[in-house]
């Protein structure tokens, strides 16, 4: 009898003990685990020249001002390149969690560009685990330079070029993100027979955060041999991202002039390691047009 009682007391006291130890475990067991999407792989939508795996958030308009100056090795007379600048102005808008659209105008070949970027896969943990993000990017550009040669008729279609890219990115840790961007550039018309209409390339990008609001970025775009003329080179860039509230400042050193894929992938000049380096910056300023409930912010 006493033994009976003793066992009962033991059982109950153990129940109390486990019950009071962690109350939440009572409901966490059958709690549906959530899928947590990894956020902020990059500070903004560009690594430097390359599109990053980030999109502008839905309802957010990103006004981008980008400059690339002349080669630093032009010396003091050209104020180390700052006398010459190439500009792209862009307006880019997030439409959904996955889709963004952008328009821009570059002084490089007086080009208008329009693009779409769509997140096919998003890096996540929790219920659904996805080790990397994958985005698809497509753009069309129109060169609007005046035709200087009256003997040649330039068709509208000859002014068009396209870029297609897949962006594989992974945030390896809070501080380190890397991406691979297989790229296809198609130009309807090329200048010389040395150049192919279709150019295949592989872009590499990486960033390392050195503070909560500061990161170092680097990128390199490898054009597979035999597709572009000899004077063209591969794009190499290194820079910093500085974030201050609604702005992101990207300051960099690069050998690229153009800020559209066609230019910095297939028509890039300058030997980075021979000192043909330009200073450049991208400034991003975001405005919230509508919030996640579809309302205009106050």
């Amino acid at each position: 009898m006493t033994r009976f009682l003793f066992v009962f007391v033991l059982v109950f006291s153990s129940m109390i003990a486990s019950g009071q130890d962690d109350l939440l475990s009572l409901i966490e067991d059958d709690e549906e685990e959530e899928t947590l999407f990894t956020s902020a792989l990059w500070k903004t939508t560009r690594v430097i020249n390359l599109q990053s795996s980030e999109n502008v958030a839905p309802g957010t308009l990103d006004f981008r001002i980008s400059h690339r100056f002349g080669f630093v090795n032009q010396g003091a007379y050209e104020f180390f390149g700052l006398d010459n600048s190439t500009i792209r102005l862009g307006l880019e808008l997030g439409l959904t969690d996955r889709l963004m659209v952008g328009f821009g105008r570059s002084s490089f070949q007086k080009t208008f560009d329009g693009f779409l970027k769509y997140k096919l896969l998003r890096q996540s943990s929790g219920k659904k685990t996805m080790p990397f993000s994958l985005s698809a990017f497509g753009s069309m550009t129109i060169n609007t330079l005046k035709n200087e040669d009256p003997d040649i008729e330039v068709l509208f279609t000859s002014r068009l070029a396209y870029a297609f890219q897949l962006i594989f990115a992974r945030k390896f840790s809070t501080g380190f993100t890397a991406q691979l961007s297989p790229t296809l550039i198609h130009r309807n018309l090329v200048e010389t027979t040395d150049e192919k209409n279709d150019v295949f390339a592989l872009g590499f990008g990486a960033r390392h955060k050195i503070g909560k609001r500061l990161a170092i970025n680097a990128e390199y775009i490898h054009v597979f041999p035999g597709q572009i003329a000899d004077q063209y080179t591969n794009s190499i860039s290194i820079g910093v991202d500085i974030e201050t509230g609604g702005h992101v400042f990207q300051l960099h050193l690069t050998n690229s002039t153009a800020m559209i894929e066609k230019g910095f992938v297939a028509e890039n000049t300058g030997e980075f390691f021979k000192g043909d380096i330009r200073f450049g910056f991208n400034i991003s300023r975001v405005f919230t047009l509508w919030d996640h409930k579809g309302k205009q912010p106050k």
Partner: protein
Amino acid sequence: MKMMIRKTLLLGILFLISGQLISQKYYTRDGKVVFESDAPIEHIVAENNKAICVWDTESGAIEMAILIKSFKFEKALMEEHFNENYMESEEFPKAKFKGLIRNMSSVHLGDDGAYTAEVEGELSMHGVTRTVVVDANISVENGKVQCIAIFEIAVDDYDIKIPSIVRDKIAETVKITVDLDLNILNK
């Protein structure tokens, strides 16, 4: 016969004890937590509807947990900065509260009415644990239990640094509102 009575009595007592020991618990999985920062330039509000909470009315023990990433902000960039720069939610994904209702004996969840519960416990977030004391308003209506608590926390107490450049946009003390609709846990 005497033995029989003793056995019955004993079982009866055991039943009573067990009834008391397997006490009533209340819980929610969709508790609301609102974060509010009122600074001179910017008023920031974020809402999280995924707080989980279990309240043992016998011992007065109460526990809550919330995923930092589930806070929804008006502006996407605020949400990103909240997670990336301030809460560092990849490193510290949850905020937890583990506490005790000190005046449990005067809170009768079985009877309709309004009560004030004195809650004291440990709030852990961003890798820092601190003691929080707060009065919660409990209202019981037709057996439905609602629990509302409003309190303020100094972000610096939790090792969250606000750079001087955004000091006019982010308050040093933020208001937290917890609003729970609790149900009986059948377990």
